Structure formats: structure tokens, C-alpha cells
């Protein structure tokens, strides 16, 4: 018999599909229900220090400033492009002129750093847990999936028991008439019936 046509294999394959769909629905459903807007996957946040910023700071003119406190999630990459002619510092990132500095924010914490172009000269950086990242959501599916599949398989077998493989065989691949020996009408059945049924009740 073909491997894929075996009833148990089919049952497991169908249970896998249902189980994964259920796990996906639970994981994504709870993620979207609980997401308050601060939970997101880590990403790259790019900031540009335009040319002439240091000059404007020195002259007391306004510069494109950032919010004094910035919120990131763990794993975010803060990328600062310095297009000015002098070096700049944005929190933990020091960038030489005409270069780019980047830092992966890898620790949940609240920092306060110096900043060369903030009006207050200080910058607060709040690094939060990403909550449910894509990785953790996939992990949730991996954790929910197998037990769900196992439960569906067991439940399915209890509710709709598997038919014996031979019965399925006969149904799907009927034997040729010559292979079946039926007793002649009126003849003794002792040779053709199973021993347990010979003159007795089966159950």
C-alpha cells in the first residue's frame, strides 16, 4: 500500500494541518489582542544629523531636535548618519564627521546620555522588551502545535476509530473474483469459516 494512503498517515497529516492552524490562530490572536502599540519587532531606526548642525548649535539657533526621551525595543538598531563637518554624539553613539554610527540596543534599561545637538544636551533612551517578536510568536506556534496535534489525533481516533487496514484495502482495491472462494450453497462451511465461528457465536 502507498505510504500516503495509509489511514493513520492521512489522519496525522490532517491533524497536523488543523493543529498548526489552531496554534497560529491562538498565537496571532493573543498577540493582536494584547498588543498595546509598544510591542513590535526590532527594527533599524535611522537618524540624520544634517550639515551645519554644529554651526547652528554654536550660534544658538534652533536645530532639528529629537524628543528628549526616545523609546526603543530590545534588538533595535539605532543608526546615526552624520552629514556635518564635526563629530557628534547621540547618546551612546559617537559619529565622526561624514560617517555613520550604529548601535544594537541589546539590553532592557533606561539610559541617560549626553547629546551634542539636543537643546538640553542630554538624551534619555528607554529600551523595552519587544514583547512578542516574530521569533517568540513562531516559538509559541512550535510550543502550541505538537500538543494540539497530539490531542486532535487521539480525539479523532476515539470519535472516528480507524478502520482496519484490510477493510480499507478491500474497499479501495477490490480483489478479482477468482481470488475469493465462496462456499457452494448447502455445502459444509467448516473449511471456509474461521474456527471460532464454527457452530458457535462469535461474541
Amino acid at each position, binding site marked *: 500500500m502507498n505510504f*500516503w494512503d495509509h489511514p493513520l498517515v492521512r489522519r496525522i497529516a490532517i491533524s497536523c494541518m488543523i493543529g498548526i492552524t489552531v496554534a497560529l490562530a491562538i498565537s496571532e490572536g493573543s498577540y493582536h489582542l494584547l498588543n498595546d502599540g509598544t510591542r513590535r519587532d526590532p527594527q533599524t531606526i535611522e537618524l540624520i544629523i544634517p550639515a551645519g548642525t554644529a554651526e547652528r548649535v554654536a550660534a544658538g539657533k534652533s536645530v532639528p531636535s529629537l524628543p528628549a526621551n526616545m523609546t526603543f525595543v530590545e534588538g533595535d538598531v539605532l543608526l546615526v548618519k552624520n552629514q556635518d563637518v564635526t563629530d557628534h554624539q547621540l547618546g*551612546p553613539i*559617537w559619529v*565622526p564627521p561624514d560617517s*555613520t*554610527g*550604529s548601535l*544594537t540596543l*541589546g539590553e532592557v534599561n533606561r539610559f541617560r546620555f549626553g547629546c551634542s545637538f539636543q537643546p538640553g544636551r542630554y538624551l534619555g533612551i528607554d529600551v523595552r522588551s519587544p514583547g512578542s517578536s516574530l521569533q517568540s510568536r513562531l516559538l509559541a506556534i512550535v510550543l502550541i502545535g505538537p500538543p494540539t496535534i497530539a490531542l486532535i489525533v487521539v480525539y479523532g481516533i476515539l470519535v472516528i476509530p480507524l478502520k482496519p487496514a484490510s477493510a480499507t484495502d478491500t474497499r479501495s482495491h477490490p480483489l478479482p473474483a477468482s481470488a475469493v472462494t465462496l462456499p457452494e450453497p448447502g455445502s459444509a462451511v467448516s473449511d471456509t469459516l474461521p474456527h471460532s465461528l464454527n457452530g458457535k457465536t462469535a461474541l
Partner: protein
Amino acid sequence: MTGKILRWGLALLSVVLVALGGLGILFQPYRFRGSLIDPPVPATDFTLVDQHNQRFRLSEQRGNVVVMAFGYTLCPDVCPATLAEFKQIRRLLGRQAEQVRFVFITVDPERDTPARMGEYMQAFDDSFRGLSGDMAELERAWQGFGVYHEKQFLDSAAGYLVDHTARIYVVDVHGNLRLTFPFGTATQDMFEDIQYLTRERI
């Protein structure tokens, strides 16, 4: 027959995808813990003298990773902590430390003579290079690495303290300024980044 081929094909595809995913996780590019300068910029060259009155020129260190900090010997807090971290990183590097130069450059040249630097380095590790020297060269180094320093006069025996940049700079084997570590970066993180850079070849 077609259905059988399709099923086995899908099974094979799944195995290949899982294997590729696993390989992708294994061979992810190294993620630096420090602040990465990309593209790296050539480090400002300078020539200073160390505690043994030996000349130290930054551009002559190519082939080695140079780890630099700016400070002064009478610093009450940041500098001893930084040099203690240097010592720990050096210990963690083991034999690879031979490819790393640990450099401490003064921001207080009036008081940090080579002799004083020698005593100070002795307290941590004599292989560290404590640099002072010509004011013009020091200015060049300070400016090239964006080092802030300002004297704070006190009514005490110390005379004055110097507020200064507490950042650590890493110059790679090609002589490029590659990484900086803000003060407070975990020693283990700095060690891993420096160790990664020592594996690069010219």
C-alpha cells in the same frame, strides 16, 4: 503517479527549507555590541611617548587592534574603572592579547609625565601604553577622536579634576576607527567585539 511525485517533492522541499533555516541561524553575521562606525574611517594619526619614553605612533600599529581610552592618572573614578576593564579584557583574550595594544592617553599633560604614567600603569598592567607628550600632538589626538576635557578647579589638595570623555575607541588592524564603547559597556561585550576584530587580517 503525479500525486506521489508531488507529495515526495513537498516533503523534500520542507526538509530543504528547514535545513536552510538552520544554516541561516548558524551563519548569521556577527553583531557588534559596541557602537559600530560604518564605513570605518581612518583613525587620526598621532605620535606620543609612553611611560618608558618610547615613541608610539598610531599608524605603526597596523596589524594589531588598538584599544584606546583618554583620561588622567589622578582621575578618581572613570579611569581606574576603564583600566581595570582593560586588564580583564586582556586576561580574557589570553594569547590573542598579543595582537591587541591597550593605550591610555592623557587629558592632563601638565601632571601626567612619563614617570607618573609608569607608576600608574604598573598598578594595572605594565604592557598598557600610558601616553603623554607634545601638546600639539595631544591636541591632534583629542580633536581626531572628539575628546572633550575641561578642568574643574576644587578647593582641595587635588588642585583640579578634569571632566573628560569616558568612551573607549577601537582601531582595527587596517588602522581604521571601527568601534566605540560608551562608558558602562559590559566587559564581556567589549571582549567579544575585540576578539572578533583580532581575527581580521590585513
